[in-house]
């Protein structure tokens, strides 16, 4: 870090910190607010001025903090002549704008916000010009786009403001993104993202094959920001911003960022044919075109905006020439343009502020009403026209001089002629600004009676106008900064001299032609204007709007077409993708030779297969009758369970069949509310498509199974078989895996069930609290029903069967560790037993007599399982480590006690609780739907009449 480097951090940081203040200080009044906004700017300026002497001596101030070294991004800053020039411009004009805005903004405008945005923007601009790391520069670059978006859209209620802001953001944002690409390429060629390093690597960069892409991408950024043709159209629309913003962004700062960047990169990128033809040509075209359009703009600010476009073109062209003299001219013109253009914008703002119009056709004669404004405006405008003794003249002469000996594609005339034309047009619109606004007779139809504004408002432009004159008369005063900046741009050691009088050069003649021609054009303005209005020309805004609207419409049709909520299509795509990608993966390699001998198929198994296939096909073909489909599903479940038994998987059989039963119950309960038929609505084409997809999926999965079923592999389960008894204390290896080896899976699994229970309960409440409740109430399920609800026979049999089923559940639970069974199946068996009771005696009656909340059961189950796992900690073992022991209690024979059983108890409780909570929730909905409630265990108990006293017992 060089001496004074700390100041650089402060300069970069101050505006951002300061941005917080105005918003907070606005309560203290508008003037205080303005002051708080001015302080950081002023401080930054002071620091710059402190550093200035050293920089002017040719020193470069640097400062660096590491930020993201992995990327090559560091918070490093440097200040050379170019940076100093721009930084001073940014802070200096910033101060003036702060002052001006204090008076310009009306009482309704949120001033705090304004200054906040302004400072943010200023910080971003300062960052750009003092960044020593191009990634850092990119960050500030994007920040200028964002903050200018806020500034342009400041008057949110105006559609022009919003649209202008979005347009600016879109165009400059796009350029910025392109520039990211360019900068990353540049960095990788140079091997560093530090500007100081990159500036040393010019030769390497220009020689690289990636030079052209990088150049184009970076220029895209610069051109969009600096409103170069064909990206110039956003700038005039940005004029919807309050005039202080226009004066700042569109004269001094933001639009100059592109120019700055070209100047910054000049030593690295300039000097090639590509550079010359792209940059100089673009600049030239922009200069002429901008000037031409400016001439016919009736809106004062639009006129100035296009004039800015034109001048930016001029600067671009100069930088594009790639000569050192042109670079000097560019640097000098940057200063000059700043002074007169900012003054002009402020003048325009004053006129607008005073007359309530910016329409030139409604103005004229203001010379008498607003003499001060007139003087300021005229000086600035004449400088813009390039009238001698004003600073614009000098730099324009230098420009014409450079143009006069530039050869473009072999032609020595193209550039000089067009440059002169540009200058000529420039004279014309500048004079128009003076004559059509201030000269002529005083009118009596101004929207508002104008007079000169308060001093605070004209002070800033007056100061600038003074500068215009001072530099115009004594240009050598600017030599120091111009030299420093030009040396920074070119990397050479130049000592340019600035004179008012350049001698009789081609430039002088070109200048004379321009002034004379401009005057003539102004005289002919009326007919020309009429012709212009009639002439067909592309309206950039309309094109842009159409472009965006088209993009939006396209996006909309793409996204809405694709994400239209047609889940069947999503699923079809998902299936097709899975099959296709799976197949691609499969085709990428081969298979080993089959090793397994195939098992024979006994006839009964073949029958089972037929059952399964027929039932599946029938489900598919008959699914429109929903109840029938459920019956058919029953066959599938049955055959698969039997198949599991045959294939040595008794646990699977038990689980499959009991789960299936409960599932069918749930489906039946739900089907009660749903339509009983599925309409036949799929067109044949869709069915065909789905059929093909389904067959492909089936073939894929079946083929996969067929492929691996014939091949043996080593698996890890030998360990499980070997350690199940010794280490896990059980002989049912599957169960030991479930509660011990992979007990953690089971833990997750019961949690899934518990959540399902909770979820369904919550959903039931959401339904009953919502509008669906009313629909439910109005549903009529009564038609077509049998009259007996709780038949006597069923009730009686259940009285015996349910306890038996519970014993069976207990049995299955207790033996699970050693024989097929376990907590899960047991839970389902007991749940089915309870279900039997619910079916027999009805929900309300049964529910009244239940002993334990199902929520509690789920909670207990999950907690018990968890605590069993945690218990192992106290033995210094990991979660879910089991222990078991054999207990001998005479007269009972020896039995095993295992913590795994406690875990299984958790499983049991969760399963039972979850299933019951699900059924409970579904039944609650049915109760809500106006179902009646039974109060006795059966429809009619003939015994109750005989022995009434016993019938009421147990209530």
């Amino acid at each position, binding site marked *: 870090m060089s001496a004074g480097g700390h100041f650089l951090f402060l300069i970069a940081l101050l505006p951002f910190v300061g941005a917080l203040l105005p918003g907070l200080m606005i309560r203290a009044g508008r003037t205080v607010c303005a002051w708080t906004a001015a302080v950081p700017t002023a401080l930054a300026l002071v620091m710059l001025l402190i550093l200035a002497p050293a920089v002017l001596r040719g020193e470069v101030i640097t400062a660096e903090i590491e930020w*993201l070294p992995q990327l090559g991004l560091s918070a490093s800053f440097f200040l050379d002549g170019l940076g100093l020039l721009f930084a001073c411009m940014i802070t200096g004009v910033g101060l003036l704008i702060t002052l001006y805005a204090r008076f310009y903004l009306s009482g309704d405008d949120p001033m705090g916000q304004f200054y906040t945005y302004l400072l943010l923007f200023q910080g971003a601009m300062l960052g750009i010009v003092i960044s020593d790391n191009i990634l850092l520069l990119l960050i500030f670059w994007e920040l200028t786009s964002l903050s200018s978006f806020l500034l342009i859209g400041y008057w949110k209620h105006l559609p022009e403001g*919003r649209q202008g802001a979005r347009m600016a953001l879109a165009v400059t944002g796009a350029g910025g993104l392109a520039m990211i690409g360019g900068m990353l390429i540049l960095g990788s060629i140079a091997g560093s993202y530090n500007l100081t390093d990159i500036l040393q690597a010019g030769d390497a960069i220009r020689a690289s094959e990636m030079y052209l892409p990088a150049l184009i991408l970076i220029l895209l950024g610069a051109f969009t920001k600096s409103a170069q043709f064909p990206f110039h159209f956003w700038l005039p629309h940005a004029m919807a911003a309050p005039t202080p913003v226009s004066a700042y962004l569109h004269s001094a700062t933001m639009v100059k960022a592109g120019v700055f960047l070209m100047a910054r990169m000049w030593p690295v990128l300039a000097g090639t044919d590509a550079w010359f033809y792209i940059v100089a040509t673009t600049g030239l075209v922009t200069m002429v075109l901008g000037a031409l359009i400016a001439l016919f703009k009736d809106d004062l600010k639009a006129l100035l905006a296009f004039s800015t476009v034109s001048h930016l073109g001029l600067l671009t062209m100069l930088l594009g020439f790639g000569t050192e003299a042109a670079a000097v001219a560019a640097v000098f013109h940057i200063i000059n343009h700043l002074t007169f253009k900012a003054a002009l914008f402020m003048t325009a703002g004053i006129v607008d502020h005073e007359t309530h119009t910016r329409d030139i056709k409604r103005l004229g004669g203001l010379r008498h009403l607003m003499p001060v404004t007139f003087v300021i405006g005229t000086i600035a405008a004449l400088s813009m026209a390039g009238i001698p003794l004003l600073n614009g003249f000098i730099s324009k002469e230098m420009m014409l001089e450079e143009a006069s000996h530039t050869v473009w594609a072999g032609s020595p005339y193209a550039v000089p002629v067009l440059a002169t034309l540009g200058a000529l047009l420039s004279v014309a619109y500048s004079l128009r600004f003076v004559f059509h606004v201030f000269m002529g007779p005083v009118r009596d139809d101004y929207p508002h009676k104008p007079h000169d504004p308060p001093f605070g408002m004209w002070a800033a432009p007056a100061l600038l106008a003074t500068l215009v004159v001072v530099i115009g008369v004594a240009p050598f005063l600017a030599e120091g900064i111009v030299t420093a900046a030009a040396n920074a741009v070119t990397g050479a050691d130049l000592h340019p001299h600035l004179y008012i009088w350049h001698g009789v050069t081609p430039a002088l003649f070109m200048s004379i032609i321009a002034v004379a021609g401009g005057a003539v054009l102004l005289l002919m303005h009326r007919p020309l204007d009429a012709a212009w209005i009639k002439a067909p020309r592309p309206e950039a805004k309309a094109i842009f709007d159409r472009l965006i609207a088209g993009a939006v419409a396209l996006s909309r049709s793409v996204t809405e077409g694709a994400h239209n909520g047609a*889940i069947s299509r999503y699923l079809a795509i998902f299936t097709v993708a899975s099959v296709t990608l*799976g197949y691609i993966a499969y085709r*990428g390699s081969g298979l080993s030779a089959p090793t397994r001998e195939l098992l024979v198929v006994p006839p009964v198994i073949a029958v089972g297969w037929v059952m399964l296939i027929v039932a599946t096909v029938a489900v598919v073909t008959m699914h429109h009758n929903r109840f029938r489909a459920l019956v058919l599903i029953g066959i599938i479940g049955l055959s698969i369970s039997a198949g599991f038994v045959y294939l040595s998987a008794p646990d699977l059989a038990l689980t499959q069949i009991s789960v299936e039963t409960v599932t069918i119950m749930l489906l039946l309960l739900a089907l009660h509310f749903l339509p009983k038929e599925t309409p036949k609505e799929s067109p044949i084409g869709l069915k065909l498509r789905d059929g093909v997809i389904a067959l492909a999926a089936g073939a894929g999965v079946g083929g996969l199974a067929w492929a691996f079923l014939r091949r043996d592999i080593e698996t890890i389960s030998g360990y499980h078989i070997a350690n199940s008894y010794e280490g896990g204390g059980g002989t049912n290896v599957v169960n030991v895996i479930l509660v011990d080896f992979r007990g953690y899976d089971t833990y*997750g699994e019961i949690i899934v069930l518990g959540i399902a229970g909770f979820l369904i309960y919550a959903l039931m409440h959401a339904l009953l609290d919502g509008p669906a409740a009313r629909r439910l109430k109005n549903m009529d399920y009564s038609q077509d029903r049998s009259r007996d609800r709780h038949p006597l026979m069923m009730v009686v049999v259940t009285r015996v069967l349910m306890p038996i089923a519970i014993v069976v559940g207990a049995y299955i639970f207790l033996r699970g560790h050693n024989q097929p069974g376990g907590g899960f199946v047991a839970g389902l068996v007991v749940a089915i037993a309870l279900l039997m009771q619910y079916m027999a005696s009805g929900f309300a009656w049964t529910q009244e007599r239940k002993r334990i909340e199902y929520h509690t059961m789920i909670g207990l189950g999950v907690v018990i399982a968890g605590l069993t796992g945690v218990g192992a900690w106290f033995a210094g073992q*990991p979660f879910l480590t089991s222990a078991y022991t054999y207990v001998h209690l005479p007269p009972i024979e020896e039995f095993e006690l295992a913590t795994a059983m406690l875990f299984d108890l958790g499983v049991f409780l969760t399963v039972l609780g979850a299933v019951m909570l699900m059924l409970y929730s579904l039944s609650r909905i049915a109760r809500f739907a106006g179902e009646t409630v039974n109060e006795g265990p059966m429809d009619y108990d003939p015994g109750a009449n005989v022995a009434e006293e016993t019938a009421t017992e147990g209530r």
Partner: protein
Amino acid sequence: MHWIILPVVLPAMLAPLIGFVMRHDIVLARTASVAGTVALLAVALGLFGMAADGATHVYRLGDWPAPFGIVLVLDRLSALMVLLTATLALMVLVHAIATGWDARGRHFHALFQFQLMGICGAFLTGDVFNLFVFFEVLLIASYGLMIHSGGRDRMQAGLQYVVMNLAGSTLFLFALGTLYASTGTLNIADLARVIPTIPPEEAALVRVAAMLLMIVFAVKAALFPVQFWLPGTYANAPAPVAALFAIMTKVGAYAILRVHTVSFGPGIEGTEDLAATWLFPAAIVTIAIGAFGVLGARRLMPLIAFSVLGSMGTLLIALAAFTPEATSAGLYYLVHSTFAAACLFLVADLVVTRRAGDTLAVRPPTVQNGLFAALFFAAAIGMAGMPPLSGFLGKLLVLDALRTPGTIGWAWTAVLAGSLVTIVGFARAGSALFWKSTATPAPETEAPAPAAASPLEVAPAVAGLAVLALLAVFAGPLSSYLQDTAAQLYDRAGYVTAVLTPETEG
């Protein structure tokens, strides 16, 4: 030594208690839920510290050696993901409580804790089947959260979400079956040991398994062409839930990263080519879809949802390269995009609940229009990857890491153009919501104006923005941690040794 299991056990024990003990007392439930989440955050920080030294910690559940039992594996990556989850969770939880979302239905806090359990479990496990189980845990909890408080649109969207994920889970099982059938093991480290021993010319089955697994993970990560579920889901979920879901897509990304690096990853002849064939182009298309969606959105919530989609594309484009550099860039972007998305949803919630719906049509300005506008633009800047928030750095890192000739053109174009379209889309939306509204007079007869947002309601969103800023400021140290993380991830031998060697610390 039991620290590793805590992120799973803690919420898993708390949730049922909240579910059955505190089901009728929202204050108690809130207290417990916040306390639990804070504790989770503390644990996550502890784990983060534990993993920072680069050791791979293995926790053998049931004291069974890998690959026969299930192990939890804590390395830098899983520690990071758990920490990310816990931080996000706390933010979202405070928002849900402050805005009262949690009281608009039953069992919010129980489901929330279960959700955390599932996510943490998925990040910590070292076993693919267990990964499936925890996927299911987090999914079923997410179903509950998704339809929390009910309502027609939400219910229909929830139904689609469930169906899509059930299809995904089915594919997961097909993939696991194929995997076990072709390798005989389920442990990620053991797979990494076994798969290289399969002759490359006989690897068809394991290749299918790898590919199907990738599709499964891609469904979660919302990658083209299995991304369709995301916009409808996120747009219709309660906003805080959508914010929490920001981590859910990352679970998919994490799984791809973990499994397809360690088990099938670079250097394994039979399977290494699979990842790139589809992942990379899919990520490109995903970015495009996300960007188009943002630009074309008619409603705010889908707009944000699409921006999440786009961010997943950007993330996956980095991960698809399967190089340590790109992975570490991707991880930075992952952390960033999680907070950015969450933040955006939280801000949107503040706005939408005070506005008649989330259509991007002009409505009179709400209370605190300026505050909301500022928050929205800040969050949008984060999401669109604009400076000064971390998204810009994330994007730069990703771009910088993708420089191979085959990828650079597509990747850069997609990321940069996607950003542009996204920016334009956000600008349009913000302009309509906050600017245009100022030109709309409030209707004469109006229901009482919605209440202003309390500081507590705004705090989580602001905290999210602060995190984005901090991520940017401390990008250097974070990146170097992430480089170490990626290096550790690509050190497959180290992982395998740590997991499969019996005497390593447990």
